[in-house]
């Protein structure tokens, strides 16, 4: 149990995909202008990561590994995740139209977002079993959501601040992102001591 919590918290804080491993920067910079959009995107990513792990882990263990086809994992995972996102979108449209309306714009955007692909590949490389993989992707998803929401707050504050003309727009956004990333380094030794 402790190990699962460590994996979860590790995904959220220490190995934060966006801020520590710089995976999934595109939605992080693209959709973080407004907090509600950032929340929508974060939840959609978490959702897709969970489903992607549920689908790809069994495929790896029961199809790719026995046939010694590990080298096919990237293309198979892209295929499966893309199909899965499409499937989820169709099902949402039918049964939960309101959720489809709020997540709908983001779902196609993250079909094979590198963070989603990254988490399923890393679960395999780290040798996680099925349950650990689920916790890991949940943690990474929540970490993505956390960094999106945090950064959306930073950006909304920045809009109202007079920044030097040469830094306006993208440059100041990138600088702010790097400062937020530095702040996350601080979590490096904290979590293990907190729980252990």
């Amino acid at each position, binding site marked *: 149990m402790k190990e699962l919590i460590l994996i979860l918290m590790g995904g959220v804080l220490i190995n934060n995909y966006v801020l520590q491993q710089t995976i999934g920067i595109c939605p992080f910079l693209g959709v973080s202008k407004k907090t509600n959009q950032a929340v929508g995107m974060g939840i959609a990513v978490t959702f897709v990561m969970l489903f992607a792990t549920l689908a790809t882990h069994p*495929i790896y263990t029961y*199809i*790719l590994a026995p*046939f010694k*086809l590990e080298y*096919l994992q990237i*293309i*198979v995972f892209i*295929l*499966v995740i893309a*199909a899965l996102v*499409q*499937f989820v979108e*169709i*099902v949402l*449209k*039918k*049964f939960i*139209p309101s959720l489809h309306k709020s997540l709908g714009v983001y779902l196609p955007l993250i079909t094979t977002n590198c963070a989603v692909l990254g988490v399923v590949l890393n679960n395999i490389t780290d040798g996680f079993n099925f349950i650990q993989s689920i916790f890991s992707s949940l943690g990474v998803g929540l970490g993505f959501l956390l960094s999106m929401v945090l950064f959306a707050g930073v950006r909304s504050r920045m809009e*109202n601040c007079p920044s030097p003309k040469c830094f306006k727009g993208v440059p100041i956004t990138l600088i702010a992102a790097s400062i937020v990333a530095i702040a996350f380094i601080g979590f490096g030794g904290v979590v293990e001591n907190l729980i252990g």
Partner: protein
Amino acid sequence: MGEILIPVLVLSVIAIVCAVILTLSAIFFSVPTDETTEKIRECLPGANCGACGYSGCDGYAAALGSKKETRTNLCTPGADKAAAEIAAVLGVQAEDVVEKIAYVACSGTCDIVQKRFDYQGHKSCLTANLNYSGDRLCTYACLGYGDCAKVCPQDAIDIVDGIAKVNTSKCIGCGICAKACPNHIIHIINQTSKVTVSCSNHDKGAVTRKACTVGCIACGKCVKTCPKGAISLVDNLATIDYEKCTGCGACVEACPVKCIKNVVIDCGK
């Protein structure tokens, strides 16, 4: 041979399974969409401005498609063209759209309305207005920080000389700016209106006069001059009843402070 065949087979099988699942789900979970609604949606301009009173073009199209809404002429941005197309889809008589336009009821530019204090806070009308009703001597005046310009979907509003100015060739009359203005001085008027009162000051004449030289001083000259009796004084401000106004322009001539103006609308709309 097996080295190539097995990976190809595995990949193909996975792809085919995915394709079959997607196809089946598309058939079984398909959401029936109303054909009329989609056709109506195509007639609408897609500005999602909300001038029709619905959440956006999709909302209006759905309401029309499901017969909850019978008025085909609510879309001001789409104007007569959209109304005619919608009417054709629904098979009803097309009605003219009353085209609307935003109008800023203030003419107190920087040189006319002096500042009471130097406001250094956040550059937004909303916050400036919370701070002792803004920095202008006239508290009804346009604050000039451009909250309306920021929300305008058409970029039709500019801040010129410290007050908002509507570019009538771009304005689609959606009314988003009117909702954003903390002083409520932007009015949505019919494009057919000929004259407007460019002041929103409800103070008594003498007080208004001290703050602004072009503000309505509630002298009542226009009320007496108007041959149709279309103008009345409401709370020390001349107010035009557009039902009665014929646009003769007598009030424009009579107004001593020249705050009643002819509406100038750019062509090209």
